[in-house]
């Protein structure tokens, strides 16, 4: 694995056991996250992006489990570790910022204690005084006044709480920060400030950020690269500029067309036909084929590989591939993009 790749996700599959059967929320997904970049992961609700984010820390909701794939983080396959060793990585090397800061903070715990607890959990030799001092420094950098640390979560504003969440993720200088829909519960102005903050932190601390969102606008603003998920699979990956200028996958095309553009003069809003598929019984072949305006015969028969179309711009679509383009072992190739 080359040095500029911090996290290499290979053929990850996460399954939910439901009463109706097994559902794959993430199905054979491969993705590389480069050091120091902000990678935006977009897709509709239910496409599996949140599940993917959590799986990067080997976290999942109750009935789900990681049933396949490898998670190469910083030279180690996290799947090789026992579950008992994972808490050491969580919070220390990989951090997470959640969608709703109000519910993500313990209502009966003071903010200061949130921070010191995290610090002392990972570095038990730290004295409480040192921990408090570090917490002070941390939040100051993020614009929270020292006195506010004694507050309880419900006494703070939404934006401040979100900044607390960031500081929690950064408390131990995590290398990778996963932000799961961090701006969804914020209003536009706070959101803008938040994104600026994100970019600053990236530069200052050399953070790598995986930004999971359904809001394409946010991605366009801050992300260096974009990954698009559809129905538990990777549809497209590339630099933001390229993907926005020249989307390869028909789904991405539709997605970009659906964004209301204030500059358009009149005209109807574009709406993609059809509905997202059930993951219990996904469509055969390419999952997007029932809704695809360019559907061909082969699309309903075989799944396309996730391959480069142009250098570092990958997509999984038969338009750019030939039927026999797979290698003899029948596996998809993942080329570092």
């Amino acid at each position, binding site marked *: 694995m080359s040095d500029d790749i911090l996290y290499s996700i290979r053929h990850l599959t996460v399954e939910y056991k439901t009463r109706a059967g097994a559902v794959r929320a993430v199905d054979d997904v491969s993705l590389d996250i480069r050091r120091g970049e902000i990678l935006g992961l977009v897709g509709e609700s239910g496409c599996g992006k949140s599940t993917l984010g959590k799986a990067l820390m080997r*976290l999942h909701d109750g009935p789900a489990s990681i049933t396949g794939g490898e998670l190469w983080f910083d030279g180690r396959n996290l799947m090789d570790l026992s579950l008992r060793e994972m808490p050491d990585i969580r919070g220390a090397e990989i951090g997470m910022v959640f969608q709703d800061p109000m519910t993500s903070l*313990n209502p009966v715990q003071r903010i200061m204690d949130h921070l010191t607890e995290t610090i002392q*959990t990972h570095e038990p030799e730290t004295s409480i005084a040192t921990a408090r001092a570090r917490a002070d420094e941390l939040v100051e950098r993020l614009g929270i006044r020292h006195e506010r640390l004694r507050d309880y979560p419900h006494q703070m504003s939404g934006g401040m709480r979100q900044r607390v969440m960031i500081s929690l993720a950064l408390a131990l200088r995590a290398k990778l920060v996963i932000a799961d829909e961090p701006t969804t519960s914020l209003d536009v102005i706070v959101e803008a400030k938040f994104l600026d903050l994100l970019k600053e932190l990236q530069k200052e601390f050399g953070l790598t950020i995986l930004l999971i969102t359904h809001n394409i606008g946010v991605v366009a603003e801050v992300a260096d690269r974009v990954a698009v998920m559809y129905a538990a699979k990777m549809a497209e990956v590339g630099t933001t500029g390229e993907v926005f200028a020249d989307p390869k996958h028909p789904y991405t095309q539709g997605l970009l067309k659906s964004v209301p553009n204030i500059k358009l003069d009149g005209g109807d809003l574009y709406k993609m036909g059809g509905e997202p598929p059930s993951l219990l019984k996904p469509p055969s072949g390419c999952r997007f084929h029932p809704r695809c305006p360019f559907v061909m015969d082969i699309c309903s028969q075989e799944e396309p590989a996730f391959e480069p179309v142009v250098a570092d711009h990958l997509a999984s679509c038969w338009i750019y591939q030939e039927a026999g383009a797979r290698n003899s072992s029948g596996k998809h190739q993942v080329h570092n993009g």
Partner: protein
Amino acid sequence: MSPIAIIALIIGVPSLLLLAYVFARGSTGLRRYILTRIALTLPMIFILATMVFFILRILPGDPVTSALGPKGTPEMIQHIRATLGLNDPLIVQYGRFLWNMITLHFGNSLVGGHRLILDEMSERFPATLELIIPASVLALLIGIYGGALAASKRKQALDYSLRIYSVIIYSLPIFWLGLLLQLFFGVRLGWLPISGRIDAIIGTNLKTVTNIYSLDALLSGNWPAFFSVVRHLVLPTITLGLILSGVFLRMTRINVIETMQADYIGAARARGIRERILIYGHALKNAMIPVITLIGLQVAILLAGAVLTETVFSWPGMGSYLVERISARDYTAVQSVITVFAMLVALISLAVDVIYSLVDPRVRY
């Protein structure tokens, strides 16, 4: 000083201090909350006392006549009725009743010696306290720890066994449990006494101040007495405590499981906080908040259980007093006892609400 007064002081003074502290330091929201709760307690006592009053007045017979039995001549009956004011209009009686309750003038026992009811209660009430306090503590310990344990080992054998335990305990008639314990530990094994509060001989040597014998024994350094009381306490406490623990266990378990599904637990887990700390530290603390209010409601079960436990173990507390007095048709006493119970219930509810407000920072600030 009478034992009741002493107990009232021991409990009352710190409570008032705490209340004052809370008032001084708390926010306006907190103050308003506490005042509202106090204001609601009074109507509650009032309603309950009224219910008691009317229930006992709709007797299809005359209490005095049945109390005196065949010995009562018409003149005696009239005389006593007049003394008790039973011939006055209902409204007047009601007013007098309320006033008496507030000033703790319970009157005399109708039957068997005309003892001052207050005197009798000053022996009985501490006895009941001596039973229900350790029982509650036991129930809380088993219930809360067991509930958290069951939640942590969810869907495994331990969880199911604990749930079965709590359902079975709930279904056990408390008097039956008491009798079984008596049978096994008292009769079969002979380890523990099965009735009374203290060995008779040792009891006569005990200098009683509060009438809570264990406390009195400690205060006067009377170790034989202390151990005797403890030995007598074991079985009744276990009986009452076990039954209550079932309810607490269920409540705690459900609340901890629900709390564990909260976002902030997931967020903490994502920071590397270990499961054990998540359950016993974070989730349990949060789960305790609704559980506290639910615990307050269990006072009713506690007191009902106390009545039965005291009867089974011949423990001379308020509960057995009530049953005795009813069989003896001593309605003045019955009335007084029930009113005291009502006051107890109301006060404990109030205390629980105040504690709740202190524990939940969302109310405090």
